[in-house]
C-alpha cells in the first residue's frame, strides 16, 4: 500500500510538473482567494458580530473556512475524479488486473489526491500568517487529534463516491450537492447561527459543519474537546457510520462492475 501510494505521488508530481502553466495558475487562484478574504475581512474589521469575534477576527474565521473547503473538495472528488479518469482512459480494467483489490486502488488514489492537496493548503496557511492570521499555539496533540477526527469523518464520503463511480460511472452529482450545501450551510463565510432554524437543522447533518466548528474552536480559540463535545460526538458518530458503509459499498460496487463486465467501460 505504501509503495503504491509513493508510486502514485511520484507519477502525479511528474505529470503536474509537465503542465507548469496549470500548476502556476492554481497557485495564483489559491493566493487570490486568500487576498479576497483579507480584503473582505478588512471591510468588517472592528464590526464583527459576537460569534465571529470569539475567533479573533473575520479573517481568521474566513481562512479556516477556506482551508476546510479546499480539504473537503480534495476528499470528496479525489477518488471519484481519479476513478473516472481511469475509466475514460480505459486503464481501470488494466490496473484491476494487477492490483490485488480495487478497494486498495481507490484508497491509494484517494490518499494521493489528498496528499497532493496539502501544498495549496500550506500556501493558504502561509499567506494567511503573512496577512495576520493568528492561531492558538498550545495543545499540539489536541490539534492533531482534531484534524484526524475531521479526516475520519469526511473520508468515507470520498471512498463512497469512488466506489459508486466504479459501478455506475458517475457520482459527482452527489459530491457536488454535498460540496454546494457545505458552502451554503456549514459556516464557511458566516456562522451557522445566522441561518433560519430549519436550515440550521439541515446544516447539522453535514460533517463539514462539525469539522469547521471543531477546527476553529481548537485552532483559533484554544478550546479543548470538552467545550466542543457536540461537534466531537457528531464527528465520531459520522465516522462510525461512514466507514463500514463506505467499505461495504466498495465491495458491492466492485462485484457489480465485475459481474456486469463494465470495468473497461465508461
Amino acid at each position: 500500500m505504501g509503495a503504491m501510494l509513493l508510486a502514485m505521488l511520484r507519477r502525479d508530481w511528474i505529470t503536474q510538473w509537465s503542465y507548469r502553466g496549470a500548476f502556476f495558475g492554481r497557485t495564483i487562484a489559491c493566493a487570490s482567494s486568500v487576498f479576497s478574504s483579507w480584503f473582505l475581512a478588512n471591510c468588517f474589521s472592528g464590526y464583527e458580530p459576537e460569534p465571529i469575534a470569539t475567533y479573533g477576527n473575520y479573517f481568521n474565521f474566513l481562512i479556516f473556512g477556506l482551508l476546510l473547503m479546499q480539504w473537503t473538495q480534495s476528499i470528496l472528488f479525489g477518488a471519484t475524479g481519479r476513478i473516472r479518469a481511469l475509466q475514460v482512459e480505459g486503464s481501470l480494467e488494466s490496473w484491476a488486473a494487477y492490483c490485488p483489490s480495487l478497494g486498495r486502488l481507490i484508497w491509494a488514489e484517494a490518499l494521493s489526491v489528498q496528499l497532493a492537496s496539502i501544498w495549496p493548503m500550506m500556501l493558504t496557511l502561509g499567506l494567511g500568517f503573512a496577512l495576520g492570521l493568528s492561531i492558538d499555539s498550545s495543545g499540539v496533540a489536541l490539534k492533531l487529534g482534531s484534524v484526524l477526527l475531521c479526516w475520519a469523518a469526511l473520508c468515507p464520503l470520498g471512498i463512497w463516491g469512488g466506489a459508486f463511480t466504479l459501478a455506475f460511472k458517475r457520482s459527482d452529482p452527489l459530491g457536488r450537492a454535498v460540496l454546494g450545501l457545505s458552502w451554503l450551510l456549514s459556516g464557511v463565510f458566516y456562522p451557522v447561527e445566522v441561518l433560519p432554524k430549519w436550515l440550521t437543522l439541515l446544516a447539522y447533518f453535514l460533517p463539514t459543519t462539525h469539522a469547521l466548528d471543531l477546527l476553529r474552536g481548537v485552532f483559533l480559540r484554544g478550546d479543548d474537546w470538552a467545550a466542543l463535545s457536540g461537534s466531537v460526538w457528531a464527528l465520531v458518530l459520522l465516522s462510525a457510520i461512514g466507514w463500514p458503509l463506505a467499505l461495504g459499498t466498495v465491495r458491492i460496487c466492485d462485484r457489480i462492475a465485475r459481474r456486469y463486465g463494465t470495468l473497461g467501460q465508461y
Partner: protein
Amino acid sequence: MARKNELLLQAREISLLFGATWLDRLLRRPLKRVFQGVNFELLGGESVALTGGNGSGKSSILRLCAGLYLPTAGQITPFCPVIWGIGNDRCFYERLTLEENLAFFMRFSGLSLKNVQPALERVGLLDARAVPWREASTGMRARLVMARSFVAMEQHRNRAVLLLDEPERGLDAAGMQLLGELGDRICAMGGAVFTATHLAALNTLHFTRGYRLQEGALTEAEL
C-alpha cells in the same frame, strides 16, 4: 518452482451471459449469451492457444481468468497468480517516459527498481527509455508491455499463468521471437501461457495444444 503438468487453472461449466439479472430485465437490457458450459484447464509447462472468430468471446475468457469478469454460472479456479500480459496496454501514462512507466508499475507492485534497466534491455528498449509514452511507436509500446510481463512473471518465479490477447498486434518478427522466448522460459519453469490469437498456425509461441471457441462452445482444436 512449479512442476510440469501441475494444475494451474481450472474452469468448470462456466457461462457468461450479460443482461440476465433482475435489474437488466427491469431496465429491458438485451440478453447477450457469450458462452455457456465451458470447461478447460491449464497445466504447468503448457502453451495453449485459444482461437475463434471476431466476437466469439476469446478476450472474455481471458478476462474471466484474470478475475476481471465474474462468471454468470460455474467456477473458475486459479491455483497460482494469473498475469494479464499483452492486450492490457492501457495502464501507461502519457507524460511519463517508458522507463518511468515501467518504474511506476514496479513501485505499484512493490518490486525492486533495480530490475527496470535489465527488463528494458531485454526487450531492446534501453536506448529508447527516455521516450515519453505519448511519443512511443506501437512497437515500442508492445515491447514495454512485454517488459512488464517479464518482471510480473519473475515476481512469481514464473509459477504463474500469463495471458496474452492477440500478441501479434504491434509486434514485429523480432518482437514475436522475443515473446516466444519468454513463453518457452515460462513453460520450462512450470508456468503456463494462454494466448487468444487468430494466428495459431504461425506458432511462434510454440503452442502445445489449442482450444477453439465457436458459437458459445469451447472445443479442443488441432494446431
